């Protein structure tokens, strides 16, 4: 005979409250993110309507009627629930451009000619066209004034250089930290703290001159040298914990079988440490990718991607949706990399076991 377990009301209530809390916190964290994602897909017209639509429209409904100056174009407004006239013109070229840039709906001139021809027999012409959801991104990357594409390439170069510098220099020290006892070990450990104690801006200012002397000013290598300062310390921490997790006896065993120390390291330890090293690399990537302060100070004509986004946001009075698209383009790689290294971030802070 099976008996139903008695329902523990107090426990059920506690569990429910707990999950409500978890969902509440998650919502508070995600709501702003949702809105900026949504905003980055809105057309200019939508982005300046109020209240803002909760989801971007997938298509635009047009209505054409004879107008005073030519043809009156009206657009269906989802919030008002009615058609609103937006443009009155005879020139189809202008009409097509308006639709492409203000409504993010590409409509060709031939298409418009056909619709206009229908006005000969009908009083009102309705038609619906698919929206170009990526319009803001295309504008952001496509308009030369923003210089987004060269800046993006520069940022990637900086990230790659930062990874190479901090992983090679920091990784060696991390290995020493994990395997040897030596003087100054504590100093190395606390370097994470003390290199941050002196403000980043304070380093960046004299770096202008130092980098200029080395002929590195306003070039990717210069910034990556600055970014590596903080990243090396972090890499030492991360790689030390990785190498500590790989038993030294494995290396010794290889040496017993006649491998040299270096060979044992290359063939045994390094492959085992590879996933952890990849995480350290992504960490360095995130640091270099997100950094804005030193990038603003240490670039003049060759800004990084973060500086370009910063400037777009700063001057965003006339282009909220573009600022959102820029912000998203910046956030996406950061979030993806965080997803890959989430386990290591937990580990670094003492191993949250989930």
């Amino acid at each position, binding site marked *: 005979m099976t008996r139903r377990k008695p329902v523990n009301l107090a426990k059920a209530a506690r569990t429910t409250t707990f999950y409500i809390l978890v969902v509440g916190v998650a919502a508070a964290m995600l709501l702003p993110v949702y809105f900026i994602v949504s905003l980055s897909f809105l057309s200019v017209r939508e982005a300046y309507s109020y209240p803002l639509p909760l989801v971007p429209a997938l298509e635009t409904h047009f209505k054409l009627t004879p107008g005073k100056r030519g043809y009156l174009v009206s657009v269906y407004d989802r919030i008002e629930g009615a058609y609103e006239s937006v443009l009155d013109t005879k020139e189809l070229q202008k009409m097509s451009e308006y639709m492409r840039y203000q409504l993010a709906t590409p409509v060709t001139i031939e298409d418009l000619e056909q619709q206009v021809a229908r006005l000969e027999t009908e009083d009102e012409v309705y038609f619906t066209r698919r929206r170009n959801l990526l319009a803001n991104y295309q504008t952001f990357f496509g308009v030369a004034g923003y210089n987004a594409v060269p800046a993006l390439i520069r940022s990637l170069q900086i990230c790659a250089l930062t990874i190479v510098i901090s992983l090679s220099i920091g990784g060696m020290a991390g290995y020493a930290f994990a395997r040897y006892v030596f003087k100054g070990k504590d100093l190395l450990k606390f370097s994470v703290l003390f290199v941050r104690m002196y403000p980043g801006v304070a380093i960046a200012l004299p770096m202008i001159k130092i980098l200029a002397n080395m002929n590195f000013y306003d070039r990717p290598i210069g910034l990556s040298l600055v970014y590596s300062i903080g990243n090396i310390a972090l890499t030492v921490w991360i790689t030390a914990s990785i190498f500590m997790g790989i038993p030294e006896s494995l290396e010794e065993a290889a040496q017993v079988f006649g491998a040299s120390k270096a060979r044992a390291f290359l063939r045994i330890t390094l492959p085992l440490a590879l996933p952890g090293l990849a995480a350290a690399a992504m960490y360095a990537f995130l640091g270099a990718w997100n950094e804005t302060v030193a990038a603003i100070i240490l670039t003049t004509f060759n800004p990084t991607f973060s500086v370009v986004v910063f400037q777009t*946001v700063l001057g965003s009075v006339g282009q909220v949706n573009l600022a959102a698209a820029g912000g998203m383009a910046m956030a996406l790689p950061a979030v993806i990399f965080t997803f890959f290294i989430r386990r290591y971030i937990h580990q670094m802070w003492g191993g949250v076991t989930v």
Partner: protein
Amino acid sequence: MTAIARRNAKTWRKLGKKAVPYLLVLPVALYYAAFWLRPVLISVINSFTSDAGRFTLENFSLVLREESFLPALRNTTVFVVFSVTLEFLGALSLALLINRKFKGAGFFLFLAMIPMALPAAAVGAMWITGFTAHGWINSLLQYVGLLAEGGKIYWLVGSHAKLMTLMIIIDAWQVIPSVMIILLAGLQNIPPEVQEAGYVFGGNYRQVLRKITLPLLAPTIQTAMILRLISAIQVWLIVVLILGYSRMPFLVERVVYYTKEVDLLYIANEMAGGYTMIVAIVVSLAALFYLRVSGAFKRARE
């Protein structure tokens, strides 16, 4: 081969073995010397020298005489005190509440990392589009019925205290989840038996929290808070993105303002240098003060 030569070779090999860790650490030391210590020294020396190359305190007196210095110092202090306190309490209570295994915990922790992963410019874009009068926050309030149709709240207009509160909330939004992750990691490292023992001896939740959990968590709290303190003093980007330069001066905001915005001003360099040094001093003092008050030195000696 003579015996002496053999012995020599042996000592050399021994020495060589001893030198390995130092050789491995040497690049880090050189790097820090070239790209950390050197700029630090240059900036310290620069802030105390005049154009003629003599010792001077002129840079500092220039900064102290600037009318936005006191507001900047005040704003920074208020921001640091309130934001660090709020972030600590918020993150600690969240971490204590969530400190158990539950379904979807891994995913939840990943979500908590998103605000931390977002670049400052993206966070700025997020909130500037939210706080404008026709932004998404007002729109959302309208959809849920908290705001009359067509009504607007002018978030970015109004008193100093209101704007400061907004800045603190925005900073907390980004920081609380990351501090929570750190504290949660510390909490989960405390063996459950220790807390159970506290209950067995008749302690209630608050007593166990105060006498057992928090003391054991102290090193973690300390690491998290010192990192927060250091970066809270250096706040500027989010302020500039939302309010623009000079509207609400902060110490580091002044540095960037003088280096990038008015860099052609004849005293721009002096101002930036003076402010930089003041920030460096404030950060170091705050960090040392915090370490002292939180008893880190005592623990290190034990």
